[in-house]
């Protein structure tokens, strides 16, 4: 029963953080807020892209410059040239496997 209640509590708090902005931000946004939010995707994409390839997981995180980072750079190059997300994934994965096989 305690597990069920915990899961329910998790569901409620997660729903809250997802819903609060859309419940409270009604009508026209102030210009400054619109600008601010407009840059959020670039900032969030950067964070989500960089963390897994440049910082090790686990209890004592440290910078790492290995196959994941190189694969990310290859993917970034392909993204710059093609603007295609699928090509980016394919090139990055291919680079990762190539590096893993060669090293």
């Amino acid at each position, binding site marked *: 029963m*305690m*597990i069920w209640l*915990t*899961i*329910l*509590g*998790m*569901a409620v*708090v*997660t*729903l*809250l*953080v*997802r*819903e*609060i*902005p*859309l419940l409270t*931000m*009604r*009508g*026209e946004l102030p210009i400054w807020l619109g*600008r*601010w*939010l*407009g*840059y*959020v*995707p*670039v*900032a*969030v*994409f*950067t*964070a*989500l*892209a*960089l*963390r*897994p*390839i*440049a*910082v090790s997981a686990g209890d004592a*995180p*440290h*910078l790492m410059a290995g196959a994941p980072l190189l*694969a*990310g750079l290859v*993917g*970034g190059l392909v*993204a*710059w040239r093609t*603007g*295609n997300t699928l*090509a*980016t*994934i394919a090139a*990055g*994965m291919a680079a*990762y496997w190539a590096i893993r096989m060669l090293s």
Partner: protein
Amino acid sequence: MAELQISTHAPGRAAQVRAGFVAMMPLWLGAAPFGVIYAVSALAAGLSPAQTVAMSLLVFAGASQFTAVGMFAAAAAPVTIVVTTLIVNARHLLLAASLSPYLRRSGLWARLGLAAQLTDESYAIGVREFLGGRGSAAYQFGANISMYFVWQCSTLAGVLLGRVLPDPAAYGLDLVFPLTFIGLLVPLLRKRDSQVVAGVAAALTLLGALWLPGSWYILLAGVVASAVGALLRRRGEA
């Protein structure tokens, strides 16, 4: 989803839902193995099959589900599990806020429905289209249910198979997510202000990932780097 109000110049609503659903499919490769692993580790932590599936259905946030399973396994107090979930998922405040300007014309229930299934991945796919002027609530909905679909299927697969599968990280499948975000980010970097924002975000991400616990680095980089971009733009216009 009768409340969805979208602009009429775009393709039909069903076609947009389908397009969003399909655009998410490459990310299934990254998500599915972790859904299976989540389920296997949840069962190992002592959750029943029903509880394991219910958490995916109701919480639907991978990082916090993995964290919670670890805490269940360590017999943590329920309150600490819930509070930790709140902290791990706090970044959704930012994602939802970022989407809200694009969803103003949607009805209340459509907006609430979209937000309820928001994930990092479906946010990224949906907001990319909004940034390009082609986005719609229907497209975002398609991306959301695509992720929901694969997460539930893989959770169920993990419960039913119940055996320990090879670590997806051993095949580099965990790289699908960062590569996706790179594919979405890099084309946005042709503009000088975006380059500055990404640079600041990169520095904050590394510092935050090294010094802050959990996923705070996303909130830190997301809030501060975007504020820097907005301030620079204001100064440029003054």
